[in-house]
């Protein structure tokens, strides 16, 4: 992910939304460039790498995904493909509404896809 990622996707703005526990901005190699929330570095790196590989696998098999969501009991994870290789990951309460997060990310997602 390029250096202007923060200008396009504000992890701070997303992190302030209701129910959001952590936000990760991940580059194409799975490296976490920005994070907000209480997730430690090691798990953040593992989460970033895992989801980056999942997006790559989907693309490889002609099922390119722009958003993958996971639900684990009281927690949900939203993973956005925000450029050809970058990923924005939001970890939040399962009971929280996801639409505000999607509304914040979607314009940036379109911008980066068109770039």
């Amino acid at each position, binding site marked *: 992910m390029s250096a202007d990622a923060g200008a396009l996707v504000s992890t701070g703005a997303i992190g302030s939304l209701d129910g959001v526990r952590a936000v990760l901005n991940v580059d194409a190699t799975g490296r976490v460039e920005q994070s907000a929330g209480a997730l430690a570095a090691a*798990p953040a790196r*593992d*989460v970033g*790498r*895992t*989801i980056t*590989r*999942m997006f790559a*696998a*989907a693309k*490889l*098999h*002609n*099922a*390119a*995904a*722009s*958003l*993958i*969501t*996971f*639900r*684990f*009991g009281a*927690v949900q*994870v939203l993973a956005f493909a925000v450029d050809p290789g970058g990923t924005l990951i939001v*970890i939040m309460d399962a009971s929280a509404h996801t639409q505000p997060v999607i509304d914040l990310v979607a314009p940036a997602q379109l911008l980066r*896809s068109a770039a």
Partner: protein
Amino acid sequence: MDASAETREPAEFGRGIVGSGIRVELLDYVQLVALGGRDRMIEVVTPQGSCRIWFDTGDIIHAVFGEVEGELAFFRLLRVGAGTFTETTVDNMPTPTIMRSSTSLLLEAARVDDESRTAATVQRPATSKAALQSEDSGKIELFTEFEDSSIPAPTPPLHEPQPDASPSSPRTVEAEGYGMMLEQFWQYEGVTGAALVANTGDVLANDLRGADHLLTVAGFYVRGAARLARTLGLGVSEAICACEPHGAQAMVLQLGNAYVLLALGPDADPRSLQRTILDPQLHPQVATT
């Protein structure tokens, strides 16, 4: 370990393992690496050539044995029966050619192993592991019971239940039951395909109608979700939903010991569907295996 092994140079710390004269079962060793959940490449040197196996966070994603790649290369290695290996860390992973989970691959390997042992008992009751003793005890030696080429080759990995000749056999009845389970999901608006997959990766029933590629992708999603759960200290993944840029959607739900994979149209509401299916009070008739 013999004396000659002790004279070998020790493995360089942090660069992976090299053998030290220990004999291990190949399947046991592969399982150990898979459970470690790390990125590794193992090169096994056998009398028939070398085989390389790549592990991505514990998943076997690629294997090469001569001209053969993928699962067949892994099963070919099992047939060879003896070899030595070195294990190294890797930075750049190759393009995956093995899609099923390590657990599923190892289960299939165990099944192949069992069948080959049965064949060996019938054809060659006096097989001795002593014949496998290596002159070079300075490396870890891998062995199986497949050292004789007269033993039938392992069958290719199964992706679907094998047909049974008898229409009333338990397997046929079981397949009909899975098919009936799958039919339940067509009542939901927006569903364009459905499949039922066991937690071993075997496809129990498939009615994806042209979206069969989702089966492979779903395997990545399920394994990725399991890793996320481990990393974040969460429970088992209940639902995974992937939206494609052109609007198509795929959803994977865990139902007991199986997963249901649903292909959804752009207008489907996966969250609503997920709640309906997972909430037994809303939809009590969905049975699980």
